[in-house]
């Protein structure tokens, strides 16, 4: 079967988004949840009752979405989830920048984090890549579980 260039682009986008989400979620999950909760608190966007559940749950959501993207399992659903996550990250970091909140780091990769501006660039890239995957993955994508376990 002939492979279309767009499928290769979607495969690369899938690997990129999957790897970043998996890595980011894993580093956050390894750090104490209280540390991530403090980072979330600094955004002054979430009610205090949400900080602990978010700091515990979000790293796992990122890892699951990342893993599903990487392995190409339920690819369209995973791509949609990655798009929503990227939008949420962009909104959170962007609103902090607009409100002039002085964040030392974004908290995206646990203790080893990017500056908020670099995070914005990364989130825009993630958003675009996720949308590409969502658009192309109408059929089971290349090198994916969706293709090998239909």
């Amino acid at each position, binding site marked *: 079967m002939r492979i279309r260039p767009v499928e290769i682009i979607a495969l690369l986008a899938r690997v990129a988004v999957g790897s970043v989400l998996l890595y980011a979620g894993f580093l956050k999950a*390894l750090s104490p949840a209280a540390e991530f909760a403090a980072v979330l608190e600094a955004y002054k966007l979430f009610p205090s009752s949400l900080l602990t559940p978010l700091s515990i749950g979000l790293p796992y959501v990122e890892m699951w979405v990342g893993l599903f993207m990487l392995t190409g399992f339920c690819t369209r659903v995973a791509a949609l989830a990655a798009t929503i996550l990227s939008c949420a990250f962009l909104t959170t970091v962007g609103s902090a920048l607009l409100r002039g909140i002085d964040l030392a780091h974004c908290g995206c990769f646990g203790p080893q984090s990017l500056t908020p501006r670099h995070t914005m660039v990364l989130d825009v890239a993630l958003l675009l890549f996720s949308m590409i995957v969502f658009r192309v993955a109408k059929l089971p994508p290349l090198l994916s579980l969706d293709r090998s*376990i239909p």
Partner: protein
Amino acid sequence: MNFRRFIAGTILLALPLIAVRLVKQTTWGPILAAPPARQTGDPKAKVVIVEYSDFQCPSCAIVDPTAHKLLEVYKGKIRLIYKYYPLTKIHKNAMASAHAAECAAGQDQFWPYHDRLFQTQRAWADLQDPTTSFMAIAQEVKLDTAKFQTCYVDPAPIARIEADAQEAQAREVTATPTFFVGDERLVGQVFVTDGARTIEKELRQ
């Protein structure tokens, strides 16, 4: 959904949980002894609170009155140990202020000096050279200023500050203030809202 897909999905969902459980550090490094000058409250208290803090950090200044209030409310039940964690990458006078406080600790006046550093934080935080402000506080809390000056130019206290900072890093502290109330970690201004509840919980254990 066919059975093979169900199994694949279950494995993918379980993998992160297993990986984190296998790798995550659940015990923290030891807390090194701190000199008595940097401890306050009852030495025999049931609950020991360790604070990793930076004198130039605004959140640390905000939580300071809460720490005082809790020491008053739980008199005889808690002990507070102060550990230096100057965030030198973002706070240019963090190390100098910790150095000054350690010199005050050498004269057994750490806590009054600590309080004044936080109360006057805005005045010295952005100074190119905060020495004059630190000297003024030394006079205010009645330190031997000659001794203080000698100590302030001596690099020896910096080694003790760095030892505290290394201990903080080993315990995965990334932000200030971080409090350990017993085993429970409270980061940032959460101490203001959750400090009392956590102390109560530790007292009940």
